[in-house]
């Protein structure tokens, strides 16, 4: 009796709501910790980045136009779909990070719970960050958060699933669209998450997931004039982070620092305020 061979999945990226290879057709080979062949991962190009940002601009208009409560339900749906794939994700996380299946299961559960946590923020962020300002005279003044627009986020290299969730969800729950660069060395959990995102009810372009070489792609994202927030959360190399900040300075793009430079920030200021702009509106009051 012939042994049945597996049908390995081709790794794809998520751009504009569709799973796709790099327009450059480049891939890089990924090995497991034991040296065996894991797969060929798409190596995104500069053009992929530009396409993703363009998709994200349209995706931002659509996503920020979705009512906040609906955004909550959509992100909760993402959690539901991830839950269904717990087995697959745990397998991939265990393999990618070289940890036990049990540890991986715990991590997957935590990641899904975090998606649920962020989902709940969509329609509350505005309330926590808004104010009526006590101005004198026949005027009213109020301030509130507005999603900043297109967020380019770099997911951590080591933490293949939890790190990706922490990278992508704050921007998404703020109403921004995201161009995420997945872990370079441990991309498979992110690829599975991308497949889930492609089938959830997100507008095309609201989330884009690219795989590739950070050193090549981070500068392209940083220099892109149509990115509104550059989140260097997962960037490990100080030199790369610095290069990105210099490039982002050209267009005065807001930069969120790498995790290793923040002041013990976890789910704190970056979560709530990192991806929003404050708009203050004054009105004249009178008959």
């Amino acid at each position, binding site marked *: 009796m012939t042994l049945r061979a597996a049908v390995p999945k081709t790794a794809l990226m998520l751009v504009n709501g569709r799973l796709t290879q790099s327009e450059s057709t480049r891939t890089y080979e990924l090995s497991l910790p034991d040296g065996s062949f894991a797969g060929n991962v798409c190596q995104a190009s500069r053009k992929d980045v530009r396409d993703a940002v363009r998709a994200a601009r349209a995706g931002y208009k659509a996503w920020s136009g979705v009512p906040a409560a609906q955004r909550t339900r959509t992100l909760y749906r993402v959690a539901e779909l991830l839950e269904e794939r717990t087995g697959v994700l745990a397998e991939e996380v265990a393999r990618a990070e070289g940890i036990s299946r049990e540890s991986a299961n715990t991590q997957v559960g935590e990641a899904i719970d975090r998606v649920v946590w962020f989902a709940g923020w969509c329609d509350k962020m505005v309330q926590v960050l808004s104010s009526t300002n006590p101005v004198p005279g026949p005027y009213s*003044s109020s301030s509130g958060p507005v999603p900043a627009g297109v967020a380019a986020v770099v997911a951590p290299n080591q933490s293949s699933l939890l790190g990706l969730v922490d990278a992508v969800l704050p921007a998404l729950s703020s109403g921004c669209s995201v161009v995420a660069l997945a872990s370079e060395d441990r991309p498979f959990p992110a690829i599975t998450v991308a497949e889930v995102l492609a089938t959830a009810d997100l507008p095309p372009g609201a989330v884009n997931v690219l795989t590739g070489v950070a050193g090549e792609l981070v500068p392209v994202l940083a220099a892109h004039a149509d990115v509104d927030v550059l989140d260097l959360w997962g960037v490990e190399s100080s030199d790369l982070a610095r290069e990105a900040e210099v490039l982002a300075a050209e267009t005065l793009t807001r930069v969120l620092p790498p995790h290793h430079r923040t*002041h013990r920030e976890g789910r704190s*200021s970056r979560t709530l305020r990192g991806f929003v702009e404050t708009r203050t509106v004054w009105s*004249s009051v009178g008959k």
Partner: protein
Amino acid sequence: MSKASPTTIPASLPASPPAVWEYAPALESSDVVSIAPSYDLFIDGEMQAPSSGEYFTSLNPATGESVTQFAHASVEDVDRAVATARRAFEGAWSAVSPAERAKCLFRIARLLSERSKEFVVAETIDNGKPIRETRDVDIPLAIGHFAYYAGWADKLEWAGFPGATRPVGVAAQVIPWNFPLLMLAWKVAPALACGNTVVLKPAETTSLTALLFADVCRQAGVPDGVVNIITGPGDVGRTLVAHPGVDKVAFTGSTEVGRQIARALAGTRKRLTLELGGKGANIVFDDAAVDEAVEGVVRGIFFNQGHVCCAGSRLVVQESIAEEFLSRLQSRTSLLRVGNPLDKNTDVGAINSSEQLSRIARMCDAAESAGAVRWSPGIALPDEGNWFAPTILSGVSTSDRIAREEVFGPVLSVVTFRTPEEAVSIANATPYGLACGVWTDKGAKAAWVADRLSSGVVWTNTYNLFDPSSPFGGFRESGYGREGGVPGLEAYLNVEETP
């Protein structure tokens, strides 16, 4: 988007202003303020001479006369100031409880209030802006900022940050010349309230009220080294923001310098907020209350001689009323009094420096060469000092440089539109995103427009209103971060994750 036809000026409009009432001069005496022949650096609670012994002259923009001399801080002076601020942060200021910090800031506010006339006159002489503005806007708002942030100092855990808050450390603050004391208040008040210490560099042409403020710090009993003020031209600011002993940089000024600072801080751990330029659109719909809109447009661009980052420097007016509106605007502008800033009748004062004056003149000339129709009321300007008549440029299209680049002077560019969508599109069509005005009597439309403006501040049926409680700052190339209100605390705090 359909191309709007340029608005032409009716040929019958007289070049000279209509007859106005003759006002007797109402000069405020400068006796109330005693200006020293020179000022040193304020470091560690005392006046310290600059190590280089260098001083530079500051001129009165309205007369061209010398006002006083300020010290040119050297690299060594900057170093000493930062070290002093660090010592004070780790020592004396940390030992002061939040409640005592609050009281200190309240004392500052009270003292400024007691000495307000002195500051009003000093600011007017040093900056060139009309005394009605320093009296009614600059100084009261500066006092208000200290009083507002005083109240936050001992309530930070209630401010809504998701974790315990701590001060950032030493803040380097570089401020511009357009609202000298007010910009100082916007920077120093929240920094101190959050427990930080500061090294502040005022603009070289307007350092007087900062040095008078140093004296208020003495009277208020601010611990030595908590507030340090170093003076000098741009190189001093560059040295200061680049200093490794600084934890946070706050800059208000031009977009180009903001860009340089962002580059310089790349790869460091320093926090950065920037409040940069703007090209505000004052959008007037055909259903606006016209007289109020005219006042609002005038206020938006000619207040403070247009030296305002959030100035309404573009009039975006609905085509159907454009000609009539422009005619009323010109009539109103013709009534503006340009003259001695110390005269309480003056509406428009002097341009702050000869450099700025040249820049404004150059940009207007270039706009005219590019096809804009230029109009100014026919008024006589004084011979001495820096003066520029209020100017309206019409027939401007959105791609013209004068429609996209900040002039920072009393110059209004006029663009027309047909639909609300077009108005929004035009308003958003610059690299900036600081402030806009919207004039319509239809509330739903005002809200609809405000929702779509990429603008940190939107004034509906009003303009140039500020309040310490009301967050101010821009989108895109107008910078990042907010000053005022709770968001104004964010830049001066580190938030720790609750485990």
